[in-house]
């Protein structure tokens, strides 16, 4: 029962807020929390692999070839950690709506 909101009656909620379905964090799109947006510059990227392990929302997709692609903005909340660790400035942080 993960689909609860402020209208869910008490008798439809699990006890103690227990969540009986694994992997439900994908249902919570944290992209709308974002006020600053990372911009990926593929020309500068050297595919060093430092950015995606630090992403708290797993919002940097990595292909089977071990190479990253553009951000998944459904989940990126704009924390900027990836931009901070990038050694070649291939990620730029821009204020949301100003790019």
């Amino acid at each position, binding site marked *: 029962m993960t689909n609860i909101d402020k209208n869910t009656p*008490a008798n439809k909620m699990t006890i*103690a*807020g*227990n*969540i*009986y*379905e*694994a992997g439900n964090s994908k249902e919570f799109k944290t992209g709308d929390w974002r006020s600053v947006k990372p911009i990926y510059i593929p020309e500068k990227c050297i595919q060093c692999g430092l950015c995606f392990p630090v992403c708290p929302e797993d919002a940097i997709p990595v292909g089977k070839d071990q190479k990253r692609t553009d951000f998944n903005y459904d989940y990126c909340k704009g924390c900027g950690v990836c931009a901070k660790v990038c050694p070649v400035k291939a990620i730029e942080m821009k204020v949301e709506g100003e790019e």
Partner: protein
Amino acid sequence: MGIRERLSGNEAAATAMKQINPDVVAAFPITPSTEIPQYFSTFVDNGMVDTEFVAVESEHSAMSACIGAEAAGARAMTATSANGLSLMWEMVYIASGMRLPIVMSLVNRAVSGPLNIHNDHSDAMGVRDAGWIMLFSETNQEAYDNLLMAHRIAENEKVLLPLMVCQDGFITSHSIENIELLEDEKVKEFVGEYHPKHYLLNKKEPIAMGPMDLQAFLFEHKYQQAEAMRNAEQVILEVAKDFEKMTGRKYGLIEEYRLEDAEIAIVCMNSTAGTTKEVVDALREKGIKAGLLKVRVFRPFPVEEIGKALSHLKAVAVLDKADSLNGAGGALYTDVTSAMYLNNNNVPTSSYIYGIGGRDTTTKEIESVFNDLVEDSKKNKIENPFRYVGLRKE
């Protein structure tokens, strides 16, 4: 039928735990409950139980370990007293909030300060609103029986609440008395195995427990706890019925002793109920219609039963072994009087604080309370409901 034995209250509790054979026991020693984990650890060492005994470094950790074990899917038990329970405080609420049916043996003792290691109920009264089922025990036998019934109540799907079995520190915990034990096999069959529906170590169902619960949800979860507590009443009675079938020993939410035709009555819990029964019998011989209402189940509070059981009386005294220090009587008194009010019951009822810090409560003192009630019953209204018995003052 049964095994005739003589055990102290702590031995009785440890024996019950041995026969229950829980998966985990985590405890830290504190007077007067120390002997329970002490005896139990010898059972573990002698291979008489399969329990994982966790010798923790504090009571906070004891309850934390029980919470972890119970959430993982294990049956967990602990024992403590007074300041040990105080140190558990944070985790006591988390145990009930997470709906984990942990069972605790609480050997009642005064919470410091000033420092005192003797019996009163201030430890139990401190957690009366913590969402635990609370059973009180007059004798070693009841401490044993209540523990044997505990898991069936706590683990019931309609309940899923932690449960504590209280008994009076030293007065019953350190007194050797006759007791009738059950055979190990019977206990095993009665208590049954624990198969929680959801638990953390179930690899077929990865789940999350104890998530953040903000404005939109905590209220509903607390309501669920209150509903579970209301459900517990029926479950407690059902389990008691099964227990009676097996042992012949009958338990209700309350025990009424010569109350039906009484004119005056005392309401109390734990060992004082026995002393009161003696006095009731003695007064009956003198023609005074005295009675007793013993509260066995304090949480959930049996509002209806108590309201009804006291409705025909002319005067009532509620004995509290802990002062709520609110200037308005003890906690049991407050609960009993509100139960009476809800039952349109306007019997003059006084609060008596007694037995604080191990102050011995004698038959003479109980008799003096009944003497007060004889006077009260002649009046419509009493002017001094906040009283003490056994207190020195000029």
